């Protein structure tokens, strides 16, 4: 823990307390990143940077106040701490119930994510070489229009100090990469991505995660699929059995389970922006959210998953919680402020801020669909008539997280237990509880893995969180597919 930075944080706490704060935390964060974009054989951009600052969060007069500054000088930090208290007091007059925080023991500790190969130490030459090789292979496929490849790296170093006595330092390294092949005709763009869409596959890991992907080994396959999609028949508009691959299940979990179980949404704190939730606190222990095959956990301790950490930004230790068990809803993801509002003693540790300049919010950690006993082969071989969809392309869901519509990059028909023709423009739609209740098979541990969602948006000012989802392929009955405009 850098003594200068720790002292700055301590100074912020002292000033806030002197100014009248009943609680204060000061959080130093430095995040460095590297982002590389290659298109065909040209570099579209290499971006390296670092942002650092201190965010000071206080309770004064029973209300929250927050001030963040990049100016890491003692007098600026003192000014920001006083301002945070002034801000809190400005809101106290519009408060009916003073903020009360769930108990949390103070901790002095440090945590780092596991890194075998420092991704920032790998040379740009090596990284560009990998990406250029992948795009060259893709462009070798006749009919392909555009080949893209990217790498994204982040390293967050933080110090959290609280007026309750916590002193927690963390270093979290995250890595991701992906390739995308685009085929274009006069009417449509067809794309295939590997290992996942929206810039690839992300993990709380070092460069070993990227080396293990085999981007080049999959480049020709996805380029061929993108070209083939242009002439494939369109996904039919019908109601059928739907099998989804693990990355698409990850986004389905994200949108229709993760977000509606965020307690701040449930309590209306995001009502005017991202929305609320169809789930209410009285549903705990009663609501059948899905079939018996659906068990959902929130697990910030999942080794290597993108949403893993040691402690959240309120100093709560990472943990694993069961949110839905055998289809029955039991638990929200919570914070120290919200947990007591529904009668719970402790936060389950999901508060994270995307930067030093914004407050922590309840964010998904790794929200996982626990493995079942089936397999993709078995799901297909026991389906007489259906569709297998792979790799997310589009998503949309209402403000209470009920009505959704998702598109994927590619699909194949299933006929008499076998995968058949490739289908283009696949999509499906439904309502959350009906959909999860129609699940009759989930893949087992061999097909289960953690997928990263690096672009989860929430809050005002907007924050982007990197979260994870452990999932396997799953099957759903009587799903509407092929929605057309």
């Amino acid at each position, binding site marked *: 823990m850098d003594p200068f930075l720790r002292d700055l944080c301590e100074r912020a706490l002292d000033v806030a307390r002197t100014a009248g704060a009943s609680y204060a935390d000061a959080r130093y964060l430095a995040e460095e990143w590297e982002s590389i974009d290659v298109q065909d054989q*040209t*570099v*579209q*951009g*290499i*971006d*390296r*940077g670092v*942002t*650092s600052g201190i965010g000071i969060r206080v309770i004064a007069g029973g*209300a*929250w106040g*927050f*001030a*963040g*500054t*990049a*100016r890491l000088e003692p007098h600026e930090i003192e000014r920001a701490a006083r301002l945070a208290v002034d*801000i809190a007091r*400005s*809101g106290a*007059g*519009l*408060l*009916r119930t003073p903020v009360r925080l769930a108990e949390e023991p103070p901790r002095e500790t440090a945590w780092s994510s596991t890194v075998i190969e420092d991704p920032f130490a790998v*040379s*740009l030459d090596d990284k*560009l070489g990998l990406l250029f090789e992948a795009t060259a292979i893709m462009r070798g496929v006749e009919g392909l229009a*555009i080949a893209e490849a990217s790498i994204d790296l982040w390293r967050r170093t933080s110090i959290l100090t609280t007026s309750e006595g916590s002193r927690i330092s963390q270093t979290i390294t995250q890595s991701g990469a992906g390739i995308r092949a*685009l085929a*274009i005709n*006069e*009417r*449509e*763009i067809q794309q295939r991505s590997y290992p996942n869409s929206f810039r690839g596959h992300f993990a709380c890991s070092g460069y070993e995660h990227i080396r293990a992907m085999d981007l080049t080994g999959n480049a020709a396959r996805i380029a061929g699929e993108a070209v083939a999609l242009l002439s494939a028949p369109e996904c039919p508009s019908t109601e059928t059995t739907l099998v989804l691959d693990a990355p698409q299940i990850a986004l389905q979990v994200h949108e229709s389970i993760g977000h509606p179980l965020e307690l701040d949404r449930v309590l*209306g*704190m995001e*009502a*005017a922006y991202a*929305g609320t939730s*169809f789930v209410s606190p009285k549903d705990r222990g009663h609501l059948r959210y899905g079939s018996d095959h659906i068990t959902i956990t929130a697990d910030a301790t999942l080794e290597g998953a993108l949403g893993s950490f040691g402690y959240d930004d309120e100093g709560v230790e990472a943990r694993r919680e069961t949110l839905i068990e055998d289809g029955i809803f039991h638990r929200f993801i919570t914070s120290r402020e919200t947990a007591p509002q529904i009668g719970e003693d402790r936060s389950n540790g999901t508060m994270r801020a995307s930067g030093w*300049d*914004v*407050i922590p919010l309840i964010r998904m950690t790794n929200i996982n669909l626990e493995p079942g006993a089936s397999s993709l082969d078995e799901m297909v071989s026991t389906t007489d008539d259906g569709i297998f969809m792979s790799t997310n392309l589009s*998503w*949309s*869901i*209402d*403000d209470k997280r009920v*009505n959704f*519509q998702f598109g994927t990059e590619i699909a194949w028909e299933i006929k008499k237990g076998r995968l058949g023709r490739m289908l283009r*423009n696949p*999509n499906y*739609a439904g*309502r959350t509880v009906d959909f999860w209740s129609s699940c009759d098979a989930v893949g087992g541990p061999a097909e289960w893995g953690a997928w990263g969602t690096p672009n989860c948006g929430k809050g*005002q000012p907007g924050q982007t969180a990197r979260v994870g989802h452990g999932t396997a392929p799953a099957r759903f009955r009587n799903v*509407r597919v092929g*929605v*057309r*405009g």
Partner: protein
Amino acid sequence: MTRLGRDRMLEIVQPALAVQADGIHVLGFHSWGGLTRFASSEIHQNTWREDVEIRVMAVLAGGRTGVASTHAANGEAVRKAAQDAVAIARVCPPSPAFPGLAEPQEIPGKDGYDEETAQAGPSDRAAVVRRLLAGLAGDMAGAGFSETVADEVLVANSNGVSAYAATTRAGVSLMAIAPDSTGISEVLTRRVGDLDLERIASRAIGKAEHGRDPQPLAPGSYTVVLEPAASSTLMQFLAWIGFGAKAFLEDRSFLSDRMGERVCSELVTIVDDPLAPESLGLPFDFEGTPARRIALIERGVAKSVVWDRTTAKQAGLSSTGHALPPPNPEGPFPLNLLMEPGERSLEDLIASTERGLLVTRFHYSNIVNEKETVLTGMTRDGTFLIEDGKLARPVMNLRYTQNALEALSNVEAVGDTTEISTELFFGGSRAPALKIRDFKFSSATTH
């Protein structure tokens, strides 16, 4: 909080400009401001931030470039960012497509800075919230935000470009929440003093009041009257998937090969106009090119996309002043869209509709088919059935799955006033209300 000003910002970026390279391009950003959020009629998140960012692009022989940035405004950090940018550029392959750095050009004058907004404090924002909440009915709660922000932007390069602007922004939103309905009103402006809080509150509260007891409605094709926020969503997504020159040149845009053709109703004109007095835009882009008004669709005919220096060089044209900060794999983008108003009031649009739907705004829209411009999303915060020219009753929210260009081809009338709106995760754009026939709703939800 005070402005740094052009001279001080130039001083801050000077260590970057002094680093040895064939060319150096620097962006300086300084921003500060507060955002007070409220929910359940209480202020629950109350924040302030100040940030400085220096972003440096180094250019070496053969058009090799690298970008590095820092959020520390001291000479050592700025110099190191520039040195990192040079180190990145060294490993990049040559890029014949690189157009070189901009030469100095005259920047149009635009006064976008309001001292009262820049200096607004937490008690000012709390006072705004109190006034927004004052008119709520007894069974209603309010949620939303009050925000005041100031920004300074400097674009400088080793060719002598030195463009500077200071801007302010004041925004408020009120969602009135009744037991089974919501209504929203949201306004963004340059000056906090321009906010008509009573009107904003009255609109949100009126929507929630009229939206009580919504009934289900079967999905299908309806004539719709889209209020400005909903019109804006269609326009913003069209921009996202087709108004930029990179997508155009790569045949990914719905306008590729259609320039000069009629693509929608002649009632529709879409421009990008950073210089319009009510626009929140800068008078230059992030390459230092002066901003100007560009017609994208004029009376239904595709006229242009927006260009930066790289795409313009590729096409043998000039930049239109729409570059984003480097590095930018996405290409140029119109940040200040405006759909020109027509001559009909919103009341007229409703009165002329025998049977249809009034849509206050859309929620969480996304792209279904990029080149065919098919979008999907939900209605939200006030959806009403129109019968015989009157609002007959509120209805539960519906999902649209609709070709956006086809919708703009089916425009029957355009509202006479524009409003600035934001879609989730987008910036602001201005649009009028639109009356559109045969708008397709593919499913419904439960509220």
